[in-house]
């Protein structure tokens, strides 16, 4: 039988496997979201529920919580595949590993990032965010969460074979998340003052575009190193 080199077919196969697995173990989807919610709840308890203060800190709190819950979800990205040998089968396939990686990262975003975007209005409500900033919040989450998945996947790929990989991955990846944090929170801040925030979004978009192309290469190299 001839080998069929359809990239789209491979993408669909890897993507649907991960999404199917996630829906079969609902905890994978729900736990990071619950964590997000709990972290956001901690802040009013810690700094006081005064609405003005919360509204000022809202962009930062929402985005720091996003970073932390993305980190939680990233640990599982390659771990199961590493332990059962699926990673090796992906490497020993005629398709480029970058393509499999792209599908997996996109699946990860669908499972962790997309729910956050959809629940953004609720978080904005809890944090007493200005109504005009809601659009910016959703947009920054929409562009930023895939970016977080890509950058985080590099850390996940590097640490997948290690015993205590989880915390180490967080240490590696959080400094790389800082630019995303700065531009996203600035966009939300600017929009809450009813000013134009297109510039920050454009920078985030540019970073996402570069990450789409460069990150799969880095992740593939990292996975090959981890498997060897």
């Amino acid at each position, binding site marked *: 039988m001839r080998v069929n080199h359809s990239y789209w077919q491979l993408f669909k196969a890897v993507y649907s496997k991960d999404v199917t697995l996630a829906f079969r173990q609902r905890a994978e989807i729900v736990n990071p979201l619950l964590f997000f919610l709990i972290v956001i709840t901690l802040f009013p308890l810690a700094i006081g529920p005064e609405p003005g203060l919360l509204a000022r800190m809202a962009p930062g709190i929402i985005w720091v919580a996003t970073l932390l819950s993305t980190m939680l979800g990233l640990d599982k990205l390659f771990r199961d595949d590493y332990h059962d040998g699926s990673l090796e089968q992906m490497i020993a396939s005629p398709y480029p590993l970058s393509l499999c990686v792209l599908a997996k990262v996109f699946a990860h975003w669908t499972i962790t990032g997309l729910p956050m975007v959809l629940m953004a209005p609720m978080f904005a409500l809890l944090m007493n965010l200005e109504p005009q900033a809601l659009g910016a919040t959703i947009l920054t989450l929409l562009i930023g969460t895939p970016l977080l998945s890509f950058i985080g996947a*590099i850390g996940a790929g*590097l*640490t997948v*074979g*290690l015993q*205590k*990989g989880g915390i*180490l991955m967080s*240490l*590696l990846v*959080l*400094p*790389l998340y*800082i*630019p995303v944090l*700065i*531009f996203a929170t*600035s966009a939300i801040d600017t929009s809450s003052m009813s000013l134009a925030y297109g510039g920050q979004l454009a920078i985030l978009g540019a*970073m996402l575009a570069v990450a789409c192309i*460069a990150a799969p290469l*880095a992740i593939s*190299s*990292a996975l090959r*190193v*981890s498997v*060897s």
Partner: protein
Amino acid sequence: MWKWLHPYAKADRAYQLCNTLLPYFIVITVVCLVVGWVWGLAFAPADYQQKDSYRIIFIHVPSAILSMGAYSSMAIAAIVALVWQLRNAELAVIAIAPVGAAMTAIALITGAAWGKPMWGAWWVWDARLTSELILLFLYLGVLSLYHAFEDKKAAGKAACILAIVGVINLPIIHFSVEWWNTLHQGATITKFDTSAIDPSMLWPLFINIAGFAGFVGVISLIRLKNEILQREKHRPWVRSLVSRG
């Protein structure tokens, strides 16, 4: 054109190269540091505003510049290691990393020490210091990743990948932190302004930079020699070296 570099892919040639280069680096380092520190800390004229406390720039600025220079060298070595599959370049990455991290730490501590007399606070979140802090995290990340692997070959390659990812992100981080700083300018404008420096202070600064660069080179070369010996210890040339004493 690069053919003359090929022999250095072998570990024993690289080791000999380190040995030949080391004396020159030591000489440059010692001379420049002695001259630079004595001139800068004792003889250069006192700043008219800050009096003598400015003298810490002779340590702060060179260490900050070298912290970034060391990261760039590390990244170049990492690219060479991954693209041309050179084991020695991987070892160079790990040799430079702790030195660079130490330089970053010195820059942060001296920056804080400078900050106290100038603005009364041990730490301010200004753009330069914040970037240095993040750079320290990147260095520590490379080091902790390397030491987390049991298999040192895989460890070296992983460290190289992380170093390259870090160096690509470094300008982005730097730019975003600068920008963040301008957004959140408080009442105190904090700048480590060395642009309008008098020539009598500039010369000792350059000499100090050269001295620090030499220092980074010396320690990196010594560490590289050690890493080569460690990696190749089962080879005959290492055993004969050890038995010779």
